[in-house]
């Protein structure tokens, strides 16, 4: 797809940071409020798809290569598995929650029942949320970007 008119570009310039902030908020507060890695990643990838629609895939390809996005996705997957393996090392099982109950980062155990939102809880779940968020952002964005570029090219060599 090629770029669209100036009105669309201006509207996207205003809307894109808001979408980005909302998506990152949903990722970061995944263990307290509705949300998490998948949902926030989908919201941020929607904002990136908005950029692709407004500016055209050729312009986006000049800014970022799809190999870099693909390696970001691999980094997210490796981080997820690494946190799970750390559970095997420091706790007893794969996917063990070794940070919960300790005095380290994210280690507080909240009171039972209806509580307020304490960000410093959750054990390894916020770290996994970040890893899965990076993975979903990069994966869905690279899918949309590559498909948009392929649909704008007229001649392929099949």
């Amino acid at each position: 797809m090629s770029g669209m008119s100036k009105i669309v570009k201006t509207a996207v310039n205003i809307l894109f940071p808001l979408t980005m902030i909302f998506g990152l908020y949903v990722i970061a507060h995944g263990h307290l409020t509705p949300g998490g890695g998948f949902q926030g990643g989908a919201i941020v990838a929607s904002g990136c798809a908005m950029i692709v629609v407004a500016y055209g895939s050729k312009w986006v390809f000049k800014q970022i290569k799809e190999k870099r996005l693909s390696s970001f996705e691999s980094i997210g997957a490796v981080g997820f598995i690494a946190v799970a393996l750390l559970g095997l090392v420091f706790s007893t099982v794969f996917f063990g929650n070794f940070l919960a109950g300790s005095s380290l980062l994210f280690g507080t155990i909240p009171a039972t029942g209806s509580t307020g939102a304490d960000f410093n809880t959750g054990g390894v779940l916020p770290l996994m949320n970040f890893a899965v968020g990076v993975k979903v952002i990069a994966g869905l964005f690279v899918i949309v970007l590559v498909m948009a570029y392929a649909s704008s090219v007229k001649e392929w060599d099949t």
Partner: protein
Amino acid sequence: MIEYIPFIVVATMIFIGLYAVLFRRNLIKIVIGISIIESGVNLFLITLGYREDGVAPIFTSLPPGTTYPAGMVLPVPQALTLTSIVIGVAVLALMLSLVMHIYRKYGTLDVRKIRRLKE
């Protein structure tokens, strides 16, 4: 009868998607039918996990007077649905990429013509 309406809706959505898969010839319409079936399955899982007068299983500032665990909806079907949605969009992207490739190779989206062209 009246309490079975969500399940009847799920069955109707799966029928609609199955009809599109079986009787439509366009490949993109078949993909849309598969997506409708998947939406029906997601709705089925969420409907299975609903508990009467329940609230969402999130403890941050609960409504006052909530009893748990009897007053909360079931969390496991929601988690399974969450996994299913992301798998659905991945499969949709892969199917549509294959459809675009087929169109560039054969020049048509009709499944019967494609089968005839293949020989």
